[in-house]
């Protein structure tokens, strides 16, 4: 007799009802997926969260929970937050390097302007060094 229980009901050794909220998302052939999510969030919290989520969004919700649970298992101290903080640092570094590169371009362009023939010795050289760092709008991030 083949088991038709989902991975969650199999884990809890219970009958899997036809309207089991977990069965579309935790198939029997991948028990590790549920154990991962269960370890971090717990089946009860998971069930409540799914009940509060519209049906068409539940698959995405489970995927994001699974991803975050994997991150937390791999990094028990920082989890997903560690990745976010790392990305913020990368953005800051990239913005700084981009600003320097653009300033360098402005400077090099200005040098070319300075090197061109001047109109007459009597007129002062006007340094046109309008540096446009061109930074994007500050990124919006979530920190409590």
């Amino acid at each position, binding site marked *: 007799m083949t088991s038709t229980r989902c991975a969650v009901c199999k884990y809890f050794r219970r009958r899997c009802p036809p309207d089991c909220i977990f069965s579309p998302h935790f198939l029997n052939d991948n028990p590790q997926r549920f154990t991962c999510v269960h370890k971090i*969030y717990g089946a009860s919290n998971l069930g409540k969260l799914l009940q509060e989520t519209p049906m068409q969004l539940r698959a*995405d919700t489970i995927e994001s929970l699974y*991803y*975050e649970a994997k991150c937390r298992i791999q990094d028990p101290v920082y989890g997903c937050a560690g990745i976010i903080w790392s990305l913020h640092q990368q953005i800051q*570094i*990239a913005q700084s390097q981009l600003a320097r*590169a653009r300033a360098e371009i402005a400077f090099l362009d200005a040098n070319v302007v300075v090197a061109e023939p001047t109109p007459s010795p009597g007129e002062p050289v006007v340094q046109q060094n309008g540096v446009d760092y061109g930074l*994007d709008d500050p990124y919006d991030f979530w920190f409590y």
Partner: protein
Amino acid sequence: MGSGSSPCASCKLLRRRCAKDCIFAPYFPPDDPHKFAIVHKVFGASNVSKMLQELPVHQRGDAVSSLVYEANARMRDPVYGCVGAISYLQNQVSQLQMQLAVAQAEILCIQMQPEPELPAIHPSMMDCDTKSLVLSGGNTGNFGDPMPQFLSYTSSNNNAIQDPLKRESLWT
């Protein structure tokens, strides 16, 4: 925290006696009940307790901070949580890398242009800063760091988890 003083936020919410060695007490003070409430809602008190017990004491503070952060993100976005933020930030990193590559290419183009012959400019026509910049060849100018430094930035600096983080590849 402990007997004789106010119970911690977790014991208050769970309506139990706050023991002297309560694992939550150092991190969930009674004056901030919301902090434990959202962690409990998303992760559950027993899961948080197990996670903290598996960590050395000196790392528990950071673990609690990251759990609170993730719980907040999940409350704001119940469907994508932190993954939504990661996707957004990775997008930003990619865009910045592209812009940086374009700027670097532009610098190379300018540097590869043949240098025009400098006309005879009387020193009295330049201010001190311009004079020193022209004489130095403008390679570092006022920027301090030598030019090649920004060329060493590569996408390998991204130490994000190996799983693909773009939503479309996550869900398919």
